[in-house]
């Protein structure tokens, strides 16, 4: 593989051809905020938080799906990018009912962490207060659609990693909803293997272990990357 040299925020970095801007930045310890990205699954470029500026390109590009090229000059921080990221987060907070104080994931929520990080101190848009339900029919897990940000990480975990394809998105636009099988109560979806990968992948408190109360739900998001790459990285102890 040929190596490519580029600069990120003025810092010169070298990486393998085919790598994404996000991978290269993270290797160089440069933080780019993400929500829909999760190590171990395909990137979809949906949350738009990882947008970066590339010199010579008029459009902002998502770091997670943009492949590096020789001589690229990338800026991951600017007033404009900060403003857009903040607005994106504000839009999410206004879209559904994210009330951190009573959320199972309070303190362990990627959305909440990002809001702190990006300095979202208030939301300027009117809260829409949609009425979404909570599905607790599964024996071990629950889904609170009010906390869902439609990042599709659970769907990808279910389809790409577990291969069960229990989860999908139904409807479209703001009315999109994560479903189980034929929009059935989760507990009745017979394709579900109860593996819990969707729960581990969730960035917010939308998917949780049953029985967790406020601030108790800690997702082990690295679990998925482990499942996918453990064999390749020989992460287990072999007994000869």
């Amino acid at each position: 593989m040929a190596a490519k040299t580029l600069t990120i925020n003025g810092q010169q970095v070298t990486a393998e051809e085919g790598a994404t801007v996000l991978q290269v930045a993270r290797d160089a310890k440069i933080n780019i905020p993400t929500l829909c990205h999760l190590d171990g699954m395909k990137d979809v470029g949906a949350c738009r938080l990882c947008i970066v500026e590339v010199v010579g390109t008029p459009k902002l590009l998502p770091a997670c799906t943009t492949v590096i090229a020789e001589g690229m000059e990338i800026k991951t921080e600017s007033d404009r990018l900060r403003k857009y990221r903040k607005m994106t987060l504000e839009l999410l907070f206004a879209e559904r009912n994210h009330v951190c104080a009573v959320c199972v994931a309070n303190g362990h929520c990627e959305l909440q962490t990002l809001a702190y990080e990006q300095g979202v101190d208030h939301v300027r848009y009117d809260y829409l207060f949609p009425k979404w339900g909570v599905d607790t029919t599964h024996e071990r897990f629950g889904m609170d659609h009010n906390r869902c940000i439609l990042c599709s990480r659970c769907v990808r975990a279910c389809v790409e990693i577990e291969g069960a394809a229990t989860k999908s998105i139904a409807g479209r636009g703001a009315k999109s909803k994560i479903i189980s099988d034929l929009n059935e109560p989760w507990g009745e979806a017979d394709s579900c293997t109860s593996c819990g990968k969707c729960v581990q992948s969730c960035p917010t408190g939308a998917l949780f272990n049953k029985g967790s109360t406020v601030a108790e739900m800690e997702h082990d998001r690295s679990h998925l990357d482990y499942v996918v790459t453990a064999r390749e990285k020989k992460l287990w102890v072999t007994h000869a």
Partner: protein
Amino acid sequence: MQLDELKAIAEKKKASAKKVCLRTCLSAGCISSQSDVLHKNLATEVKAAGLENDVEVRRVGCMGFCGQGPLVGVDHKEGKEELFEFVKPDDAKAIVSHLKGGACDVQKGDPQHPFFAKQVKIVRANGGIVDPENIEDYLAIGGYQALHHALTEMNSESIIDTITKSGLRGRGGAGFPSGIKWGTVAKSPGAKKYVVCNGDEGDPGAFMDRSVLESDPHLVLEGMAIAAHAVGADQGFLYVRAEYPLAISRLQIAIKQAKALGLLGSGIFETPFNFNVDIRIGAGAFVCGEETALLASIEGERGMPRPRPPFPAVKGLWGCPTLLNNVETFANISAIINKGADWYASFGTEKSKGTKVFALTGKIKNNGLIEVPMGIPLRQIVEEMGGGAPDGHSVKSVQTGGPSGGCIPAEHLDTPVDYESLGKLGSIMGSGGMVVMDDTTNMVEIAKFYMEFCMDESCGKCIPCRAGTVQMFHLLEKITQRKATKRDLDKLEELCDMVKNTSLCGLGQTAPNPIQSTLRFFRSEYEALLQPDATGAPVGANGTAKAH
């Protein structure tokens, strides 16, 4: 099939021409006014009058002047042309007796009306003239000879070179140079390649592609076949929206007829070139007009766009290089091959070559489809061809580009219609919808109308488009209900900028255009609806933070 056989069919068809040809428009618009019954009645009356040997009763596609429909054209062999407007099924008898010299009180139209006279027809040259359900009609006017020429006299390079030199740009809206796109697909490595025709004409107020598909389906098929030869594809897909059942059925007939004559299928014109076309029917999702969403839909998935690059030209259908062009783009190809790049480039402006079909609708006297050279001043279209606003009103604005476009105010009517000039005014060429608005139109309501459209049609994948369009619509609603303040308007403008710059696909990136363009030219209409800021009031009713 060889060229001489093709020419023999054409000659035979031409030789069998009768003294008079009665052309009835059987496009979706005129059929809604019972032109199908009229067509049958005309055939019956001609038979009853014993004129079968002299008069051909022909089913044709759209003649363009839809607002005056149903239309019946009468061609006399010696060259005289007549036109009847607003023809009812019962008028058949009168028209036939008119052919025998009798009196006729059916409203006569003027085939030399500026609406027709100002047009330059390349794409719509055969529309309203050939029977779309009879391939022989298409062959009689030289159909499929361009394909023969391309297959036997030209190679990939020379075809792409011709298209590049012609200056043809994608007619779907963005105006990407077609030659470059074709070249990219041709160069992309891959054993399997596809050609896809985008017939998912979703812009409200646009029906150019429907008309082309309903009136002249072979023209599009021939263009696709030439493209396939140029880029090295052997399979094509024609994606047509489900709202166009007549276009779908005519395409099905056309494909069957072309296959029967060996003009589609294997070993076309006894060359090694194979090309098959399958129709894919949309199911009511505007976003599928976006190219990556359209490809997802052809693959049987939810029509969700994905980030580009990689572009479909490199990685498209099932990961293979895919050439994706709009109906009108393909409809230009055979004329360019037949008459040459220089001929085509002689129409239009420096950067926008050729002609463009527009659907001229809304508050305008003459409604219908027109094809005009690029660069024609908007005023000529609206005032001379369209006849201005009806009922004594004046034209206030012309909307081009649908939900992705903008409103051009009356004071800019002298703008030439080309990609760059419309872009400078904050609008776009778009696919060709041109909706005229008169002085009774409320521009804030129009912006809200488009925003509601984008909100409903957003696929929901990316946050700026999914949640941003909802908030923009919400703010517009507040403004129209006179509940908004200056701060809300500021928020709206800020959102427009953000959604435009951060959305994943074209739908979101252009969704703010109708607001931005109406704000640019009709800002006072927004401001008139604003309420004064209450001093010391918080920014919004719910302006407190919850992220704590």
